[in-house]
């Protein structure tokens, strides 16, 4: 499974969400692709396995940066709800199972609160 098959519709879901937009605005981008701003939501592709693999999956790390802890936590919860809180769902053209691998808050640096959520997307295969 190539990452754009799941990332494009997953990101569209995040961008279209008013609650998330109220926190990070339009600053949703791939890490390293833009100048770092606060608030923002960055994503990084961590793992992408070839489709032929038995353990076919895409793992993505989402990082939220805000000026307050409450909004950072609210954004993480929102991402969790939008991308993970369902057993099986249609994402773009694929039937997907998504799994929250990890969620963590990071040390506050320079007044910036940050937290991360790692999500794994797996295609559902018919037996």
């Amino acid at each position, binding site marked *: 499974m190539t990452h754009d098959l799941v990332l494009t519709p997953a990101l569209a879901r995040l961008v279209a969400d008013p609650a998330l937009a109220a926190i990070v605005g339009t600053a949703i981008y*791939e*890490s*390293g*692709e833009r100048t*770092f701003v606060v608030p923002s939501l*960055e994503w*990084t*592709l*961590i*793992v992408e*396995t070839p489709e032929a*693999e*038995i*353990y076919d*999956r895409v*793992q993505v*790390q989402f*990082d939220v*940066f805000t000026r307050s802890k409450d909004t950072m936590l609210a954004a993480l919860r929102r991402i969790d709800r939008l991308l993970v809180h369902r057993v099986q769902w249609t994402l773009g053209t694929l039937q997907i199972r998504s799994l929250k691998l990890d969620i*963590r808050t*990071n*040390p506050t*640096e*320079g007044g*910036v609160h*940050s937290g*991360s959520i*790692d999500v794994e997307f797996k295609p559902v295969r018919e037996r």
Partner: protein
Amino acid sequence: MSMIEIRGRTDGLEEMAKELLEEVLVSGEKQVGEAAAVLGKEMKRLLSSRRGPSRPGEPPAREADWLWKGIGWTRPKVNRQKGEITSSVGLGFGRGYRALEKAKAAGVNPFEYAWLQEYGGISGKTRSTRLPPRPWARPAEARVESEVVQILTIH
């Protein structure tokens, strides 16, 4: 009478289970050691292969030799009471600890550095520089997962 017969059979199964567990632990020790080595070598490979600048999401470039040399794994440890065999893999385990002395001598906390590479963060003198993730541990786990499962499967 039937109670006694049943108990006797249960004892027999327990003995069989103990013997079976012992067999599994003996063969499993080798398998766990092999699986740990596979994962450790993949981590080392990811950390040592790239030269020059690395993009976010890619393993870090080979700047510091101590980072990949610092990856190691412990010998399998058997806990008969729990029926567990464990081997730890990662920075500073096994022979890896020796390499970390170089980092410490240079004033670098190797564990903080490795964590920052894996997950990214905010760093720099003014604490305002964004360092994107350059993961090496999670991709290594994913790459060897099927091989490790195969090694650990009892045939």
